[in-house]
């Protein structure tokens, strides 16, 4: 199991670097983005045990916030921030919650095949982005009217979750190559692969 944990960690780091590469490629502004890092987290959370999931949630939150969280600096114009920003580390809590949700969904992912798994990953991404967006606007004290934020969330979740089957299968193949015993919580991929890919 520990070997599989380190393999998943390596996959996660690969996802982090691939995400940075994809940020550079994405051209359009105003449409949904491919958010590989949360996808990797959700998929890994669906095959790991509770303790490992919390570990990944912690690392995920740190990396996510390091990537884009704003910090206020003293300004000559104003010595107080004009608006509040989310504090660095907020997403550790969010990913912790989402990791817990993934644990609850593990049984469904295990017995319902890749299509349902992809839909579940889509829903988790959607929920995470909604939570983050709501928290951001709550802290800033205003909510934009209209639907384009919702469209961004939907599109981003949609584009990103299209890659979920690939990642789930890859994680399953890695498990198969390692020929290790997973505990009950992490047995989802065995069934998944038997149903959809390997048989």
């Amino acid at each position, binding site marked *: 199991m520990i070997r599989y944990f380190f393999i998943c960690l390596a996959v996660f780091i690969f996802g*982090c*670097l*691939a995400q*940075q*590469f*994809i*940020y*550079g*490629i*994405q*051209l359009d*502004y*105003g*449409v949904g*983005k491919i*958010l590989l890092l949360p996808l990797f987290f959700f998929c890994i959370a669906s095959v790991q045990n*509770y*303790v490992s999931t*919390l570990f990944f*949630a*912690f690392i995920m*939150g*740190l*990396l996510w916030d*390091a*990537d*884009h*969280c*704003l*910090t*206020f*600096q003293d*300004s*000559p*114009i*104003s010595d107080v*921030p*004009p*608006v509040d*920003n989310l*504090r*660095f*580390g907020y997403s*550790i*809590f969010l990913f*912790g919650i989402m990791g817990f949700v993934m644990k609850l969904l593990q049984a469904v992912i295990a017995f319902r095949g890749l299509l349902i798994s992809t839909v579940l990953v889509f829903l988790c991404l959607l929920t995470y982005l909604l939570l*983050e*967006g709501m928290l*951001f*606007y709550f802290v*800033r004290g*205003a909510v*934009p*009217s*209209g639907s*384009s*934020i919702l*469209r*961004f*969330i939907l599109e981003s979740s949609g584009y990103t979750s299209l890659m979920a089957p690939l990642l789930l299968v890859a994680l399953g193949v890695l498990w198969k190559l390692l020929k290790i015993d997973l505990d009950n919580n992490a047995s989802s991929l065995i069934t998944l692969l038997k149903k959809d890919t390997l048989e």
Partner: protein
Amino acid sequence: MKPLHIVISVIFLVLAVLVITRSERTVRSIQGVYLNAVSPFIKSGTGFKDKIIAFNREVETSKALEKRLAAESAEFGRLQATQARYIQIEAENARLRAALDFKERIPFNLVSAKVLERTHSAWWKTITIDKGEGSQIATEFPVISEKGLVGKVDRVWNDIATVLLITDESCLVSARVEGSPEFGITSGLLREYGEEALLKLDYLSKDISVEPGTRVVTSGKGGVFPDNIEIGTIVSIEKGPLYSHAIVKPSFSVVDTDLVFSINTAKK
């Protein structure tokens, strides 16, 4: 839930609280380590994108290129004429300044930088540029484009920096309305994602009388942004009982901006 899980959950919460209570300085150093590590990947992604764009350009038909060459030759001629006129005016300006004994204005020390990535979330308004401390860029340096003020350097590392855009609500710029005695502070206006960004110019006098379309430029007060950099143009004025505010359309557009310039404002 097993006892082990409860213990692990408590440890997780304690660690998360420790992280969230870190000082701004610690947070910046964490972000620095992370972005220094991933910057080669952002740059390689941008390089790959550039190759795709270059390839697309190459496959344009020769006829279209010929047409474009003809149009650009005409434009080049026009610009040459304009430049000749500009040189004349500059010389004349220098003579007049010398005659009036004006203090020589310190020229901008500009560092050009390529936009590596635009904000990748609907709620953050930043861009990442391919220059950092290695190119003498520091935090709080103003960033401009050919169209006007873009923002200020927010976080900077060896060869990469992030710029907080003026369209973010947390970016304040001391501004003045051109051709009037009005001064104010601009900040980003909360807008729908993907919609045209707008700014709010606050603290104008309650009986202000300026027309929409009037230019708003930096005032030079506050010490971050040099004066007379174009911010945008006034779209509308909303008068209040104590002071008025104006809605300003910024000159720069995050979609079209690929090359920016950081102004070195460090005191020597």
